[in-house]
């Protein structure tokens, strides 16, 4: 029986079927669902780690102990985990280790579109890439086998389009992986990467890649599909699907392993067609590997290396390059719709971050932001974030601006989970180096942006167990903050007073702005939609500037509140100068009366 599974669900299924015992990850779109799904299977251990580097270390430790292990992350997560990735390549493992990198061409929810196949080559780690969910599942098993056979971690690289496309998958049963080794391996030369040992390991991993190159020649996920010999397409990942769709008669070399590539198979293929092209998303990775064999292929000169491919784009670029006749063009109608108002993601109605940004906008404070829902505070009408680069960057960047003598008091703003991820070492750095940065933790009690994952602050683990709930205030003090204050995120006056005090003080301080995410089940129970007193509202527009989807401008210019959207957070009511928006207590009083 075939079941429709997303690539992420299929990887989770594969990990379970092929005996993965331990998996660790930090949530990140488009990878998050892999661990969420995996955690639901029986007889497995799955955890949310505090960041990707920790997650990969955990998986490596489990693999050292002899179990099959997995770590999953979004592409930029592998930057965080790169140190671990490289030493794991050097040491090898005992039980199979697969690392899933979910790349994000088109940057649907990322700050860049780096191609992580480069990491594979960089660290001498083999890279496998599925073309659909079935292969995503199967390649988990193949990767674990390769890992054990060649004593190497394996990078399973997917993209958003594989992660979030659902295609039919044949389900199998669980095959238990190896049990833990009776004793932890004590192999000084293999697992202790002192220079003296590392120097001996380097030739070992170079030799491993040579053996893998040979292995790739018969790896069943690499295959030639001979067709018309005028055109030959080398392809991998989701681009394989576009190749089959747009060039149904062409010859195709499908690579399930993109590093290392199989030289003889590639030579046979390129030599067997009149014109050889490479169809791959993002970097000319396979293209360059083929060119290093001394073979001529075309790739990025035809198909863009920026953004995501789709069938129309591939067809049009192929026509432009003369690969398809002009008659292949599919015309379509693009009606003139004029300019349409955009619908970017916005802070939800009742979001605990909104009030904070209303105040920072008012105080005109320079904000160094971070990665999470609260990055949306950068967008109109709040316009209240000035920098945002990567996870945990806010504090270090603010500190750098401070040390550079920037005349304004720089603020660092980050969420609860991001603080645990990479904020903590940066805050310690501020304290140690006598910085003056004001650090604000927007604590909404959950890892929200990726879809409500637990973290060390929530008191619950990925597999639903209760655990200790790490408190911010003692943690911030322990990291060297002498001034730690906590305010209610929904009380604008309190937020403003605390920020003004922090700015006045000539020392570093930390502020916890606490308010639970409005989408949490507990928060939902407390919704009380507010109302506008039509008599009092004069249409001044102040409430529109809080940027809440629940506040609607009526044709007469006055405000009204959509009762289906409003949660009753009262941010707008506090902003209204004419007290025209009724507070929860007033609404409740009226409805009782």
């Amino acid at each position, binding site marked *: 029986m075939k079941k429709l599974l997303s690539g992420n669900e299929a990887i989770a299924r594969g990990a379970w079927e092929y005996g993965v015992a331990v998996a660790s990850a930090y949530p990140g779109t488009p990878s998050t669902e892999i661990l969420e799904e995996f955690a639901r299977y029986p007889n497995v251990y799955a955890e949310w780690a505090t960041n990707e580097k920790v997650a990969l270390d955990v998986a490596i430790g489990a693999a050292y102990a002899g179990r099959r292990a997995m770590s999953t992350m979004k592409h930029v997560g592998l930057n965080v985990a790169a140190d671990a990735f490289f030493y794991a390549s050097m040491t090898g493992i005992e039980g199979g280790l697969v690392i899933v990198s979910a790349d994000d061409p088109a940057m649907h929810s990322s700050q860049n579109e780096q191609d992580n196949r480069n990491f594979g080559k960089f660290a001498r780690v083999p890279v496998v890439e599925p073309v659909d969910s079935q292969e995503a599942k199967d390649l988990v098993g193949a990767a674990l086998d390769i890992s054990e056979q060649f004593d190497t971690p394996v990078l399973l690289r997917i993209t958003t389009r594989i992660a979030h496309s*659902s295609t039919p998958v044949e389900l199998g049963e669980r095959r238990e992986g190896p049990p833990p080794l009776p004793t932890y391996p004590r192999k000084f030369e293999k697992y202790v990467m002192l220079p003296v040992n590392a120097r001996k390991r380097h030739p070992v991993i170079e030799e491993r890649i040579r053996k893998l190159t040979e292995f790739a020649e018969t790896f069943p996920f690499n295959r030639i599909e001979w067709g018309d010999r005028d055109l030959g397409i080398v392809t991998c990942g*989701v681009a394989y699907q576009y190749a089959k769709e747009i060039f149904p008669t062409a010859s195709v070399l499908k690579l399930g392993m993109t590093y290392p590539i199989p030289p003889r198979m590639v030579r046979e293929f390129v030599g067997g067609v009149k014109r050889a092209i490479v169809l791959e998303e993002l970097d000319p990775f396979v293209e360059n590997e083929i060119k290093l064999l001394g073979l001529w292929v075309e790739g990025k000169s035809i198909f863009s290396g920026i953004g995501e491919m789709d069938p129309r784009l591939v067809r049009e670029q192929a026509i432009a390059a003369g690969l398809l006749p002009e008659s292949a063009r599919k015309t379509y109608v693009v009606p003139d719709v004029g300019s349409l108002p955009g*619908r970017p993601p916005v802070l939800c109605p009742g979001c605990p971050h909104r009030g904070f940004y209303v105040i920072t906008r008012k105080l005109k404070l320079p904000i160094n932001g971070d990665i999470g829902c609260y990055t949306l505070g950068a967008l109109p009408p709040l316009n209240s974030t000035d920098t945002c680069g990567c996870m945990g960057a806010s504090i270090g960047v603010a500190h750098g601006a401070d040390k550079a003598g920037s005349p304004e008091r720089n603020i660092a703003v980050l969420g609860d989970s991001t603080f645990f991820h990479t904020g903590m070492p940066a805050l310690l750095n501020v304290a140690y180096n006598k910085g003056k940065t004001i650090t604000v933790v927007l604590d909404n009690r959950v890892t929200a942006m990726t879809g409500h994952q637990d973290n060390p602050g929530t008191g619950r683990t990925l597999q639903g167990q209760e655990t200790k709930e790490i408190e911010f205030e003692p943690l911030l003090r322990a990291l060297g903050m002498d001034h730690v204050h906590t305010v209610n995120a929904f009380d604008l006056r309190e937020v403003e007073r605390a920020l003004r005090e922090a700015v006045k003080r000539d020392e570093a301080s930390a502020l916890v702005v606490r308010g639970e995410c409005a989408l949490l089940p507990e928060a939902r129970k407390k919704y009380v939609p507010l109302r506008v007193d039509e008599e009092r509202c004069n249409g001044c527009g102040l409430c529109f500037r809080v940027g809440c989807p629940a506040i609607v401008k009526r044709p007469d210019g006055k405000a009204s509140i959509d009762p289906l959207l409003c949660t009753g957070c009262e941010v707008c009511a506090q902003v209204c100068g004419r007290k025209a928006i009724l507070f929860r207590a007033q609404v409740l009083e009226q409805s009782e009366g």
Partner: protein
Amino acid sequence: MKSMDFIVVGVGGQGTLLASDVIAQVGLGAGLEAKKSEVHGMAQRGGSVISHVRWGEKVYSPLIGKGEADFLLAFEKLEALRHVDWLKPGGVALVNDQAIPPVAVSSGGAEYPSDERFLAAFRAVTDRLYLIPSLAVAQEVGSARVNNVVMLGALSALLDVDEAVWRAAIEERVPPKYVELNLRAFERGRGLVK
């Protein structure tokens, strides 16, 4: 029916993803291969959402090219208009007759496109536009949240797939305690289009 391509659009939170799950499941149930593709992450944050569903004897690309969709199923009018160019000339558009103004509009900074603009754009592509009062029907049935399934009912009336396959797909995809409500919504939607 050899192959069929659907673009499903709406606003995050409207049930776009569930609807496309059901359509893909129906394709499988009808004995075809089916693929579905969408982007998660921002969907819950009230953003514009698009999902691709394809049925066929053999389906390769999970994505549909612009101007190549047989059906555009839209849960909101502005999103329908934004994605009108995905529809192939003469394709079928089923649009929930509901406006959800984005913040730029509700805060008075931009205008919601007029019905004239909406109709003119669709007329340029197709004469097969169905405006469905699905929100009102959903509320009659018992909950605004089954709006998406009313739309599925309407879609089902235009496709040559056994109604039982649709019902089975809905039963599989919605939580057990809401199955009955959703099937009623489906039934009403199915009656809206002839």
